[in-house]
């Protein structure tokens, strides 16, 4: 099972990203867990300088933008 981590301090964009992740998981029917990382120190621990960002199993995939449902689905595949 994959763990999708949404990194962001809780601004509107981060919530949109989280929503897109949910959609993507629902769409491709894979078993994946969403984890929200809101602590600023933890976020920088990923080496990320611009939020929102997205990591899959601890590996940063997207930085500084709201990925579309399709993009996320492609990453999950």
């Amino acid at each position, binding site marked *: 099972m994959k763990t999708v981590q949404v990194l962001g*301090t809780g601004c509107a964009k981060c919530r*949109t990203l989280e929503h897109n992740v949910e959609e993507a998981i629902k769409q491709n029917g894979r078993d994946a867990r969403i984890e929200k990382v809101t602590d600023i120190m933890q976020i920088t621990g990923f*080496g990320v300088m*611009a939020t929102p960002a997205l990591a899959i199993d601890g590996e940063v995939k*997207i930085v500084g933008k709201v990925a579309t449902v399709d993009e996320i689905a492609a990453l999950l595949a």
Partner: protein
Amino acid sequence: MDRKQLVILAAIVAVFLFAYFVNFTSPDVQNAIHEGFYLLQWYVRYHTLACVVPAMFIAGAIATFFQKEAVLRHLGPKANKAEAYGVASTSGTVLAVCSCSVLPMFAGIYRVGAGLGPASAFLYAGPAINVMAIFLTARVLGFDLGIARVIGSILFAIVIGLLMAWIFRSDEEERTAATMRLPDPPAAKRKGWQTVLFFATMILFLVFSDWANPSTTRIETADGRQMNVSVLIRTGETYRVQLQEPLGDHPQGAKLTLNIDEIVAEEDVTPDSYRWVAWIYHHRWYFATALFAATLTMVWRWFDRDEIDAWMAETWSFSKSIIPLLFGGVLATGFIGALIPDELVAGWVGGNGPRANLIASVIGGMWYFATLTEVPILEALIGLGMGRGPALALLLAGPALSLPSIAVIYSVIGVKKTMAFVALTVVMSSTAGMAFGLFFS
């Protein structure tokens, strides 16, 4: 209960207490309510369509089309120092359009990127110099304050960054082992010059659509009064004018409505050096329309459907979060401003003394200003007698710091560095305010 529910509860309690305790039969309060709505109407009529709305689209475009990666590269751990400070102090123009992105970037630059100095510089200048803040400041508070805000922010950001780096030079920085992650460079869909031209056209549109009227008209009325005014609206029956100098009980900047039969003489006395500015003002919609058409053409030719959708979504999310705060802030400012006696404001932050500047920058440093609301709030305060120097001090310290942001900064850099940063911000902003007040008022 989570935080969001608590915020809603607090809002309900606040409305309850307001409605419960305020004495609405008092003429003062009734007058204050009127003032609140007058201010809101003025703001909506003169600054919303020509300034705030286009600014939202520009902000959305910046967030969507601007390549963050290109900027972040210069703030990495290996960037050379001059480059890092330069970029950190100026990149807020395009990176910090949404204030919520400032603190994460600050933390990122500090722990993953170029370190404490550039991070401090970014934190100080970032939120103050985003495109919209500059525009609103220059347009509403005056061109001099707008320019002073940009220069002051950038200059003092570098000074503060260097001082922070120097003060804590012996500290082992708490850096993470993580390597910096840059956003993937997006596939270039346009050539560089196309992007530049696109942004330049939109910003020029804003410049023209919101061009200020500098012309001066001398009007003599039937009751023998003479006044120098800028004519705001001229209809068949009335003139709506703004006083350029105090007249009787009316302060400078007051707006009057004159009936046409009251006016016996009128003469254009615009200084010659301002003629071209006035000429542009009268033709501003031709320029703006041409630029608007150019923008549309570029959008049509160079952008695809998905990009436009993303741009509009971004614009909408900015508008949704900023505009209600802006309108609410303006309304509250008008209301509170009418209840606070002028002498009180002038006594605290009038003139240009060290004390006035210090108070202004401390208030700016503590108080949370929702994005852009600092501009109308300051306008009201200036109207009530705040000096222009202290106004700049507040503009410089305000966006960088607030009690909530201090709490986050503390969690990232610890108590000593936070205190040093706050102290430097207050001192530098007061100094800038005093220097500005000395030369410009």
